[in-house]
């Protein structure tokens, strides 16, 4: 193969480039492709408008669990309201809530909006930390001037 460089060093470099390029291309290509489709945006109820979070698209919804809104249906279905004290979204969830789920506390639900703008959660997230306030929720509340220290009941 006459087109290969003559010196062994240059040949080795060529081999390295030949090995590195496809792997890196694969990694970069896959990353870009995955980033487009499989990242999940986070919204608070007032931000989750129909154009930002269309029905059926997987997003995370975070806010406070409205006091007195938790209703348990038959077969483990739970409904509760998530609020950022500006807007409120009704969330339906089939399954066990995390042990740290409480009314008046912060919560993050992953799922998708239904056409009627209620939210069907596939996952309700909790942390090990007893002072559970997801950072996004805290940031949003602070931005809206609705922040208050942990544990106090929200104004309702």
């Amino acid at each position, binding site marked *: 193969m006459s087109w290969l460089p003559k010196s062994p060093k240059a040949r080795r470099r060529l081999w390295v480039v030949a090995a590195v390029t496809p792997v890196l291309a694969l*990694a970069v290509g896959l990353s870009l*492709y*995955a*980033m487009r489709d499989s*990242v999940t*945006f986070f919204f608070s109820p007032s931000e989750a408008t129909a154009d930002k979070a269309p029905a059926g698209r997987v997003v995370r919804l975070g806010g406070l669990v409205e006091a007195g809104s938790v209703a348990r249906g038959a077969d483990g279905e739970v409904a509760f309201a998530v609020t950022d004290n500006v807007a409120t979204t009704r969330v339906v969830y089939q399954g*066990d809530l995390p*042990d740290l789920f409480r009314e008046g506390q912060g919560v993050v639900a992953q799922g998708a909006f239904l056409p009627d703008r209620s939210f069907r959660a596939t996952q309700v997230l909790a942390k*090990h930390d007893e002072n559970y306030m997801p950072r996004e929720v805290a940031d949003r509340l602070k931005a809206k001037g609705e922040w208050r220290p942990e544990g106090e009941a929200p104004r309702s």
Partner: protein
Amino acid sequence: MIVELGAFALVLALVLSALQTAMAVAGRMRRSPVLAGAAEGAAIAAALAVAVAFGVLILAFAVSDFSVANVAANSHTDKPMLYKVAAAWGSHEGSLVLWCLVLTVFGAVLARARNLSFGLKISAVGTQGMLGVLFLAFAVFTSNPFERLNPAPFQGASLNPLLQDPALAFHPPMLYAGYVGFSVCFSLAVAALIEGRANASFWPAWGRWVRPWALASWSLLTVGITMGAFWAYYELGWGGWWFWDPVENASFMPWLAGAALLHSAVVTERRGALAGWTTFLALLAFTFSMLGAFLVRSGVLTSVHAFAVDPERGMMLLAVLGVTAGAAFALFAWRSPQLRGGGQFAPVSREGALVLNNLFLTAACATVLLGTLYPLILEAASGATISVGPPYFALTFVPLMAVAFLILPAGPLLAWKRGDLKGVGQRLAVAAGLAILVALAGWMAFEPRKALSAAGIGLGGWLVLGSLAEVAERIRLFRTGPAESLRRARSLPLGSWGTVLAHAGLGVFVLGAVVETGYRVEAARTVAVGETVTAGRYSVRLDGVRIVEGPNYLSERGDLTVSLRDGGAARVVTAERRFFPAGGQTTTEVGLDFRGLDDVYVVLGERGQTAAGAPAWSVRVWWNPWARLIFLGPFIMAFGGVLSLLDRRLRLGLGKRKAAT
């Protein structure tokens, strides 16, 4: 009084580490063995001082001395002794002392090392001392675990009940030993950058020192991560074992970098090649360890496992990370062009295969890093808050690893310098054929039929069979008499067995992960006593629920009978919901029925009512096929690592020093 002793010992350790660094630098400048010896003595003394501090902290927890703020915040008199002791490393302050303990003890072991050249050793000891100064200063000035409370409370706030679990009591020490073990690789790399020469004998000798540390750290990290995953699996009650959560990724990145390091160190040791790259990985592995500590504690990323979160101190950790990694990589950029290790090699050879391994591992590590940090980058750039979840990693990390796994079994069969690809193909032909059969069997055996999962099963089988093919090749199985094969198996070095076990363990893990992910069945129902929930082949009947009083909790304990739907042995499992009055928290205790390789995973949920008004409980059942292999595989891998380590001990006479770790 004894608490003040602990606080004093911690400050003393800081001073000793500073002395260690200063004397190492002076000793290196003057080439003085006396000063070098003093630096080594200081390293050992620093380790002893931190050990005293840590012992005092454990004692304060054991006797529930609530005049210590950290004990009051994390312990409770009602807690069982194991968790009182474990609470010592369950908080930010305590875990930092554990981190410093591991760092200084490893520094002391390094200081005791014989037959390491003078310059290399003194520079490494000095670097390790510098790391000790940084982390001990961080502990003493920002996170002193011995701060007193006045007046002392009567009762403590208790450790988060989720953390009161045997797996979690031992998970942090293992994890930290692994994380911080890479600090020695880091110090050796910095020392090599200072002392290194473009010398044919320098790099193999250096590789011989880095490799055992990389192996030991990686093995410990493997066990630590697996214990953490197992804990998340049965304590959180979510039915899963890996969530691609930022905190999990934080521990996974040093693991990947460490795996790359221990492979590239082999090339450096045997062939003197890849010197710069191995140095880079050694720096990278500990940088990822520190990045992990920062991500976990700073709370910059939302995680389900967030632990001891404190943004301010997290930022200081970022400063420590920036200083350490920045200085080290600057040194690397400056010095590495002058450090050609040499060692030409052909692309088709053992070293070529190891380079390919490194390429895939680092590319995979980069995708994990990108997925973990992307939310931070995007938030800083555009203000949008996103999370990157399992689908991203399934699309990036998994395919890269799958390609790497396809090539993996060929690596150990290739000869150094010049490999024979055709010969390797012939030797692996049987394994490849069997792996295809395994994939077909997997496709037939599981319902519903999934082509991708079947391919994954074939891949797992390929890893196991390909590794066994290597043994078969080495001992000339079926090609000579069984006696001769046995003799060859006995004389096969432990390191080869280590490689085979580590790779086969990876295959075992892949089998478990693929089958569990592809075919798990989940079911949930609200049931009254006597009713059943069915999941796949199993049905679970709620036999009764009673109230049980534990040492520091009240519990609703459900007895459930797990049986195969088409008859077969029924077994009783208990699943609990525990209420801890001390913290006002509820935790879930999963009921696990081990069925061969499968798990039947039962979670007792909240109490509700049936339509008729009778009491009922929401019961969630997972049938996790082959879940046992997920946790077995990594232990086999770590065992392989330990075997390789033992092999090296025989050759290097590392026995005493290794036992000390």
